[in-house]
């Protein structure tokens, strides 16, 4: 590490005991959320039956006391959706932490520099293309590696938009974070306008487009999970290895540079990793709002700003939150999960603004 021995006290991290306790606690919360979310749904599968079904899957001689459809509901319908919620929530929670540290902006979220706009354009293009160009209707059902065209284009769109933002921001010389933020805003606005244009001409695909924009975990199956999981988990793990750098960024540009960190490549690496994670998450579930904004703040309030804990706990917390939000969405019936997270997130966001204004400090 470039951080020298002299800075060890600044970046040394918490004691091992506290780290174990906090991360272990977050893991328990996530596991409990997953168990509850797999247990509850619009069709009732009792706890003894659920345990029996799992036992049978593991090869135990359990008498079949459940409806023949129950195993399908648990393993083919509910579990992939819950796992997708955990994966997407983890990615958004972790990427949110990174963007807030990078941009030193409490309003930053994983979408802020263009990922969401780019991914939306990709997905909306994929969904509306057969409507706009009838000749494409024949190819609309084709999948690539078992993944739908919308997911592939959303992933590419998220990466592409951020690549464009980085390239433009770089033109102005040594890119600073304000330039990056403003460029991201400008590119997002432009892309969002194109998305809006496609939206009004999407005709019969309108409901699908809007459903995607609001975010939904319904379309995630095992093939999609198998592709998205390495991207989200691998990217998050690589980000976690950079916790010292993230802590240094909190000190400000001059302090970090004074401590021997060359900011330009470090930031670029962080932006690319966080964008990779975000794009994979968005491709899987659409633009689910607020998780990436709210979870890092919640976790920071609970355990403080040290990224060694903040990053992993935000991943676990984001996962648990989205699993529970999606369960609520499923139980209410027909509500996109993005609506549920926004219903939780927006009031929290307002409170945060109020609190920040009252304290005259930025969190």
């Amino acid at each position: 590490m470039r951080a020298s021995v002299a800075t060890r006290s600044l970046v040394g991290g918490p004691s091992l005991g506290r780290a174990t306790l906090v991360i272990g606690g977050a893991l328990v919360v996530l596991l409990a959320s997953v168990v509850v979310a797999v247990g509850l749904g619009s069709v009732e599968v009792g706890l003894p039956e659920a345990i029996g079904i799992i036992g049978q899957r593991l090869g135990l001689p359990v008498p079949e006391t459940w409806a023949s459809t129950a195993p399908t509901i648990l393993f083919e319908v509910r579990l992939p959706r819950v796992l997708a919620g955990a994966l997407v929530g983890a990615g958004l929670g972790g990427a949110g932490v990174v963007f807030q540290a990078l941009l030193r902006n409490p309003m930053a979220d994983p979408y802020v520099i263009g990922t969401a706009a780019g991914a939306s354009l990709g997905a909306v293009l994929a969904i509306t293309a057969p409507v706009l160009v009838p000749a494409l209707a024949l190819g609309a059902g084709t999948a690539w590696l078992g993944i739908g065209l919308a997911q592939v284009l959303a992933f590419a769109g998220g990466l592409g938009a951020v690549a464009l933002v980085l390239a433009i921001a770089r033109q102005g010389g040594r890119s600073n974070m304000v330039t990056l933020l403003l460029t991201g805003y400008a590119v997002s606005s432009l892309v969002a306008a194109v998305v809006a244009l496609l939206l009004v001409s999407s005709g019969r695909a309108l409901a699908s487009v809007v459903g995607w924009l609001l975010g939904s975990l319904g379309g995630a199956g095992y093939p999609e999970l198998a592709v998205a999981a390495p991207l989200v988990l691998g990217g998050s793990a690589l980000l976690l290895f950079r916790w010292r750098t993230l802590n240094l960024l909190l000190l400000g540009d001059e302090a970090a540079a004074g401590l021997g960190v060359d900011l330009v490549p470090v930031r670029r690496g962080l932006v690319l990793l966080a964008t990779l994670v975000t794009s994979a998450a968005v491709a899987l579930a659409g633009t689910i709002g607020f998780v990436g904004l709210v979870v890092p703040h919640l976790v920071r309030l609970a355990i403080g700003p040290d990224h060694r804990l903040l990053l992993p706990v935000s991943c676990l917390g984001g996962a648990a939150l989205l699993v529970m939000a999606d369960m609520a969405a499923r139980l209410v019936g027909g509500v996109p999960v993005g609506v549920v997270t926004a219903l939780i997130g927006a009031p929290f966001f307002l409170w945060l603004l109020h609190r920040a204004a009252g304290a005259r400090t930025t969190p």
Partner: protein
Amino acid sequence: MRARRVWAFAPLLLILAVACQPTTPSLSPSLSPPTASTAPSAGAYPLTLTDDAGRQVTLPAEPESIVSLAPSNTEIVCALNACDRLVGVTDFDDYPAEVADIPDVVIFAVVDIELVVDADPDLILAAGNELTPSAVITELTDLGYPVLVVYPASLDEVLDNIELIGEAINARDQAAALTAEMEDRIQAVTDAVAGAARPRTFYEVSVFEGTIYTAGRDSFLASLIDLAGGGPITGDPLTFSIALEDLLAADPELILLGDAAYDASVTPEAVAARQGWGAISAVQNGRVVVMLEDPVITRPGPRIVDGLEALARAIHPERFD
């Protein structure tokens, strides 16, 4: 944050999308693959059918339990005397009355996959053209259910769809009898309006925040108005909307208020009071008609003929005394 302004009107569009869904069975005929053809051997299972999405669907045995993901499909199944085989329908279903007792598996236009699996049907009747999202069709197919996608792009195809479903559920004779009766009634309508002047007809699907929605160009609804002896004034084939100035330039001789079936505040008087609408011939001549039959006009099921007759009576009252 302003970059995400598009999200702000997303919920509004969702409402609009849901509101428009049952009323827009339209769309480019080019999107609709050739109509269902049937396997040669009648009454024999396993039976392989080609649905409206061009998919091959194989039924191992006569379906004893059916899930319908669209009200039009429900109506077709019930018209074929197979209502008792339905184990799941949509919360939009309202006809015939007995479907009220069948569990809903589609709630607020969203298919609850768990509930479909719980119903464990032998056959799922989906709607095409994204009314049932293609992702849902894929998921249900992957779960091993035979999913027949039903989507008529014209009145003729409604009849074909009735015969396709009749084939699928081993009710060919009932289907043939039903379509024969429907064909007779369609013929009676076209005979009745034959040779009559074709009034320029504007069918109002809805007016929302100043945007006027109507039959899209080349749409199902436009073809029905045409069959009923009217000259349809159509909107954009993708957005189903028409600008007020285009509507004024087209100068409808007859306005049919489909939205009045759901909103009592839509009346001929309210239409006359709208800014600019007073200049329209139909308004000046008092030819603005409430169409309470909108649900059957826009639902491509067996009662579509009722809708056609209602349209013909509204367009040519003089031919139906």
